[in-house]
């Protein structure tokens, strides 16, 4: 039976790959970064159960890696697609890791000795990594990679320290990029989303005020594997923050800077992060500014009710108009209208977290062109019949799941991933004349 191509190794792509592989269908999983895992690997906990995110995800990642039916192509992108459902001919461009995957043991001695430091994408820039690095401790595959734009050997022709310290002789500066030709029956797109950059909303001062963070940055700050080991040291002075405010709908549900749609997961992840703060230090004061609380998923309303009644998280209905920073203390003041009482009020905070919109990935247009599929008005991949065929794109045999076709939370991404796997398995069987 012909294999299925899955593009994107986040939770959606992983789930779709595992579903297909478990039913006996071969899968090629193409991931752009050095490790599968996606955004879920960066999260501390998941809502509404407060399970450790990586603890749920890591076993799935490893299963993907070890599964005899799954081939993972990391640091790779799909650059060509021809043919039709049942017989797609695919070109995958594999970028060089500069490390021999068959030899590297993931010991990280190379990155320990590497002299070059760069902001870590996994830590959303709050921490650093080396020029040769493992994407994160639970990376899959656990193989080092060289960032050629940062590496001294590639930029200046000096160093080669990693080669000297590697006991398994895995470093390979000569590696070239490689094009792999695949013949697959169908394609699952699971490339995910990116975060809206709140710098465009000048009144919130992101980028100008050190203690204004995005929710993903905060997720790393509160996480035990984050840059501060989970202690809420705020960026301006390292002081532990006990008075924290969240602002919802930053770049979403707006007609001005950003996108008009609801970003789907923010009400819940803000509640989760608020509860995390309370778990760390119950005397903390946590406020969530919201427009409407969207708690439609299974167990979501109960989770918010508990956050309010048990943990004492304060919810204020109102979209803040402005954040101000004290020039000396770097403390923040939020100016807002409390629309439940119709009063203009102020709230002081040590740290403000902006719950930014999930937005279409900037490379969606490129991938849409390669795959010959459409995008919606915002740039997400389009589903022409979202009610009856919510995971089908406008090209037969190409399916989409997760946040690449609109903001999704984890449960929904996983459910959609399974749906695409079922659709793709049907195509694979039909191509063999089995169905």
């Amino acid at each position, binding site marked *: 039976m012909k294999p299925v191509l899955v593009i994107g190794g986040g939770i959606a792509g992983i789930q779709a790959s595992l579903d297909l592989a478990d039913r006996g269908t071969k899968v090629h999983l193409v991931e752009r970064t050095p490790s599968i895992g996606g955004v879920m690997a960066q999260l501390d906990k998941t809502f509404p159960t407060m399970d450790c995110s990586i603890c749920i995800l890591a076993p799935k990642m490893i299963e993907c890696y070890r599964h005899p039916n799954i081939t993972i192509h990391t640091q790779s992108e799909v650059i060509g697609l021809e043919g039709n459902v049942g017989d797609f001919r695919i070109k995958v461009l594999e970028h060089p890791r500069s490390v021999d995957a068959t030899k590297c043991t993931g010991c990280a001695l190379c990155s320990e000795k590497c002299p070059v430091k760069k902001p870590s994408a996994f830590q959303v820039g709050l921490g650093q990594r080396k020029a040769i690095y493992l994407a994160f401790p639970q990376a899959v595959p656990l193989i080092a990679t060289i960032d050629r734009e940062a590496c001294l050997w590639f930029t200046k022709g000096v160093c080669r320290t990693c080669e000297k310290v590697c006991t398994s002789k895995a470093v390979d500066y000569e590696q070239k990029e490689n094009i792999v030709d695949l013949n697959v029956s169908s394609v699952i797109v699971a490339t995910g989303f990116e975060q809206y950059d709140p710098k465009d909303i*000048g*009144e919130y*001062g992101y980028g*100008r005020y050190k203690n204004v963070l995005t929710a993903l940055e905060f997720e790393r700050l509160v996480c035990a594997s984050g840059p501060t080991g989970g202690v809420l040291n705020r960026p301006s002075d390292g002081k532990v923050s006990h008075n924290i405010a969240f602002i919802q709908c930053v770049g979403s549900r707006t007609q001005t800077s950003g996108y008009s749609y609801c970003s789907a997961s923010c009400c819940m992840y803000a509640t989760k992060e608020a509860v995390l703060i309370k778990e760390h230090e119950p005397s903390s004061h946590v406020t969530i500014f919201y427009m409407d609380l969207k708690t439609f998923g299974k167990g979501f309303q109960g989770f918010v009710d508990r956050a309010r009644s048990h943990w004492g998280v304060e919810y204020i209905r109102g979209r803040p108009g*402005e954040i*101000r*920073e*004290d*020039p000396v203390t770097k403390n923040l*003041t939020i100016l807002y209208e409390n629309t439940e009482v119709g009063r203009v009020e102020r709230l002081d905070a040590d740290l403000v977290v902006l719950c930014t919109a999930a937005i279409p990935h900037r490379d969606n247009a490129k991938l849409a062109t390669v795959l010959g599929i459409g995008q919606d008005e915002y740039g997400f991949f389009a589903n022409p019949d979202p009610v009856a065929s919510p995971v089908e794109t406008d090209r037969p045999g190409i399916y989409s799941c997760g946040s690449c076709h609109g903001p999704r939370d984890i449960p929904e991404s996983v459910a959609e991933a399974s749906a695409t796997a079922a659709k793709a398995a049907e195509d694979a069987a039909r191509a063999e004349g089995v169905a």
Partner: protein
Amino acid sequence: MKYALYLGCTVQTEQYGYEASVRTTMPRLGVELVDMTGVSCCGFPPFSSVSELAWLYSSARNMAIAEGMGLPIFALCNGCHLSFVETKHKLEHSPELKAKMNEKLAREGLRYEGKAELIHIFELLHDVVGKDKITAAVSNPLEGLRFAAHPGCHAIRPSRIGRPDDPENPKKLDDLITWLGAEAADYPEKIDCCGSSLAAASGKTVLDIAGEKLKAVKRRGFDGLVTTCPFCFKVYDNKQRAIQATVGDRELEVPVFYYTQLLGLAIGVDQESLGLDLNQSPIDPVLEKIGGK
């Protein structure tokens, strides 16, 4: 650098210090100012609540006169500048309105093409004259003084139709202050409104709002407040005694200057020519510190 000088009603009827300091400083920086004849009120955007056409007509008429002169309009007042920018924006997006304006303007033999360039004092001093010329002209640097920049709402909003500075983080006036040798520091209340738009509805509210800002400026240890808007100046300077009474603090004293007055002091213009006698806030301590001529 030649500009049609549009003074506007407030400057001509009561804010002489601004006009005087502009007329004495600008030529020293190589800016030639040409007076406009036959101009009227800018139209005053709030008029649009009574008659949008009347506002647009007054505004377009002044721009038509500048077009006739072949010069960009340098409007001193934030409000006048905004009125012109808004009108230009509206007429650009509505050919019908533009045709209607020209029909009316034809009675005076005027025509509005939409070509008139508009320049704000921040743009003129910060972007056109620039740092090099201003710092080179400074003979009496205002060292040891720390001023709060107050750009004024209409210089930065509405944010999407082309205002001279960033609506949330305006910096140009701060730059201009530092080029004179003084210090300008960011402060959270920088973009707070002076309140003057509310004057017709509730005078006391204006004074309350302005009082909050003056208190912050004083509390944060500034030597004074600097603006280029005649409305803001009118509230903070001319009404400072009334503000003191309203907030119940007779000690609430904040020296208030037009930027061009400080510019004049720094480049060696004599105090009398800068209209400093007309400032009603207690500016003497600052003048003493500056010394000079």
